[in-house]
């Protein structure tokens, strides 16, 4: 059966793509980049690896078995075609990108030795010297050109194609230098290059039965839907890394089975565990839960573009019906942060703490519900395990709604096909949005009137103007105020209810060290392989 948690992580790539599709001006792009706190990049300075405050000293050797939450024949080691987090975790073992994103989602140099740009349009990337592919071939600009160009090919079918298409010209300007010319300025290119699909493969590779990259591990075995075995790359360019000798990686789609496999000692790291399993993990000796707080949320989606839900009072009633505290404790066991019906999570620097937290309020909900005139008509609510935990959230809302005389008719539909068949197509439903690197991206992708995934079909001119203005604003205080206003608008007027920001949870044996959260996703933003070690 399809894993209910299986979801297509589009990652930062897709929203950046959308940003570019929208045709960001150079100014906008730079502003966004600056807003993300990465002014140094525009200076073309060398990005340094974030210093890690590690208490333990890494040890070398040992092998681990790791289970992700999915496994299927669609498993791939072709970076262009990754769709699932298990693909990301696997490809990160075998390949490197030109940059990588750190714990604050800032880009750090990886295969690139330096990245310079001219007006954020023409980017010159110098490659690190002495890097070898697993078969001994040295890394050259041809490999980079091939890897990036390939993403643009429709026959490859990469979901990063729209983004890659903005790289109008990718050419080698020397054996170790690549020049990328963008169709429009984008100061965010280093971030884009640090995302999952932009890993570098060997020039001319068409066969992905195995993976030949520059990564910390070599691919010893890869069987889609079964497992992969990664063995230490002795010639890895990062000195001292990786620490492990071997990683066997596979998927166990069943939540309980994954946890049980960990607790019985069959695996050392279980990716993406259910909050309900944390009690079991914590109760066991020698195992721990690894929490990554992130902007991941499951949201209530009420379409505003059609009857009967194009009714502000109905929307407001629904928002008041979300018992956030109960959802947090009952569904997520506390591994979540209260949301306020807007997508910027408290860890974000533009999070607006001044907006009053919307509480669970039956009186107000009843007031708005009666005003809406919906009456006794049952309102269908579509939920699916594809949008994680949405059926449980729906049940809680249904119970609350019943108390004010509103009948919610829950339609639980298969995870299989949910995104193409139900998401944004039903008047009331649920979505699930993965962590994004910035407020601008979130707003641009999901709330702007012409956003590709404007989930509730919300159109607000004032919001659109604010969004463009904020992108251009360099005064942080002013900018923060703009984002605050936008958060307020979304909270009060859009058709989206965001009750909680959900933490990513992994479980591991305590002998496995070195895990640090990277809010891009669980398992260190799926880049745990070269960073973890086993304590003997």
């Amino acid at each position, binding site marked *: *059966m*399809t894993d209910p948690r299986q979801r297509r992580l589009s990652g930062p790539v897709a929203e950046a793509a959308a940003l570019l599709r929208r045709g960001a001006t150079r100014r906008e792009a730079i502003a966004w980049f600056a807003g993300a706190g990465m002014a140094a990049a525009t200076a073309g300075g060398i990005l340094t690896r974030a210093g890690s405050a590690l208490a333990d000293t890494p040890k070398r050797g040992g092998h681990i078995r790791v289970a992700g939450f999915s496994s299927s024949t669609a498993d791939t080691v072709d970076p262009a075609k990754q769709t699932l987090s298990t693909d990301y975790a696997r490809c990160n073992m075998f390949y490197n990108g030109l940059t990588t994103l750190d714990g604050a989602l800032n880009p750090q140099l990886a295969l690139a030795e330096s990245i310079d740009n001219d007006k954020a349009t023409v980017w010159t990337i110098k490659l690190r010297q002495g890097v070898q592919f697993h078969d001994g071939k040295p890394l050259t600009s041809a490999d980079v050109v091939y890897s990036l160009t390939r993403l643009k090919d429709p026959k490859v079918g990469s979901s990063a194609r729209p983004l890659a298409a903005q790289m109008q010209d990718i050419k080698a300007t020397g054996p170790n230098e690549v020049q990328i010319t963008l169709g429009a300025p984008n100061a965010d290119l280093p971030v884009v290059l640090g995302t999952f699909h932009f890993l570098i493969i060997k020039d001319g590779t068409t066969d992905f039965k195995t993976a030949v990259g520059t990564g910390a591990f070599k691919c010893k075995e890869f069987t889609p839907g079964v497992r992969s075995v990664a063995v230490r790359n002795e010639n890895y360019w990062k000195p001292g890394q990786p620490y492990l000798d071997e990683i066997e990686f596979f998927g166990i789609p069943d939540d*309980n089975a994954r946890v049980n496999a960990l607790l019985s000692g069959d695996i050392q790291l279980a990716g993406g565990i*259910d909050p*309900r*399993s944390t*009690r*079991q993990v914590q*109760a066991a000796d020698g195992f721990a839960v690894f929490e990554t707080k992130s902007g991941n949320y499951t949201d209530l989606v009420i379409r505003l573009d059609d009857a009967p839900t194009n009714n502000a009072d109905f929307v407001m009633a629904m928002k008041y019906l979300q018992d956030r505290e*109960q959802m947090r*404790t*009952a*569904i997520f*066991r506390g591994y979540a942060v209260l949301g306020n019906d807007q997508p910027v999570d408290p860890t974000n620097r533009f999070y607006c703490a001044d907006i009053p937290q919307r509480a669970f309020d039956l009186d107000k909900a009843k007031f708005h519900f009666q005003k809406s005139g919906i009456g006794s008509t049952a309102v269908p609510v579509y*939920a*699916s395990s594809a949008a994680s935990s949405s*059926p*449980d959230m*729906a*049940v*809680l809302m*249904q*119970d609350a709604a*019943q108390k004010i005389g509103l009948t919610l*008719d*829950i*339609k*639980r*539909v*298969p*995870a*299989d*096909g949910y995104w193409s068949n139900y998401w944004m197509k039903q008047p009331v439903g649920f979505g699930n949005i993965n962590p994004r690197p910035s407020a601008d991206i979130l707003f641009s992708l999901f709330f702007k009137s012409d956003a590709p995934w404007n989930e509730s079909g919300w159109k607000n001119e004032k919001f659109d103007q604010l969004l463009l203005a904020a992108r251009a604003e360099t005064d942080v205080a002013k900018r923060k105020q703009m984002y605050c206003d936008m958060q307020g608008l979304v909270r009060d007027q859009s058709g989206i209810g965001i009750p909680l920001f959900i933490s990513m949870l992994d479980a591991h044996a305590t002998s496995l060290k070195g895990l640090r959260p990277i809010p891009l996703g669980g398992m260190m933003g799926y880049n745990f392989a070269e960073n973890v070690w086993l304590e003997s």
Partner: protein
Amino acid sequence: MSVPLRATLPPRRFRISVTGAIGLALVVFWLAVTAVGPMLAPYPPGRIVGTDVLGPMTHAFPLGTDYLGRDMLSRILVGGRYTISIAFVATFLACFSACTLALAAAVKGGWVDAVLSRLLDALISIPSLLFGLVVVAALGSSIPILVLTAAVIYMPGAYRTARALAVNVNAMDFVRVAQARGEGAWYVMRAEIMPNMVLPVLTDFGLRFVFVVLLLSGLSFLGLGVQPPDADLGSLVRENLQGLVFGAPAVIMPAAAIASITIGVNLLIDNLPTRRVSRER
């Protein structure tokens, strides 16, 4: 000619054995639950009433609480109604349509038999999983569709059993008598053959009922099932599976409920006061 003695102990007429009585008691109990259970539920099945999730049995929550802190007793009372009524209707539909087709195949014989048998053989060989997925995807999810899906999945198996029985009964002289009288095929099927295969068909019904009860939780997993907040008993077991580690009543109780329903049905059917079909020879 010597006195024909039966090879098996004759059952006592109008009396039921102890095991049969246990089965009857279980079935009556669950029928009562189906009829009035939800009315007796102390809490709404979708409401979070306990602060403890997967909690133990207490005065307030006699069967503990589930993974969200909902009252298990209420959920089982409601889930029992769904499970029993859906499984019963689906199994009945499966067995009824199977018997009808089997009777037609046996009485008509020839190409009717051949075509029916081949088609149903083809149907039985298609994995129920694929079938369930296709149904959900093509027709969506509702209780009637759920019932029909379960019925169609188990119908070919019931057909095989019923056809074998019908062919045997069809060979009896009383069927020839009816045909020689000029009776139509429908009468022969309904009045002459069917009453003589009720008992073995019921036995088949019992086992198939078990399968349908279990199939429900599988289909619910695919998204074809009882809609939240309610859940069938199998799904109750599945959604609270994390509690198994702690021996939570939330997982043990619905499993025990399933077991008692299915065992009850089978004990009752296996110990029905039997009627002799013919004198032993």
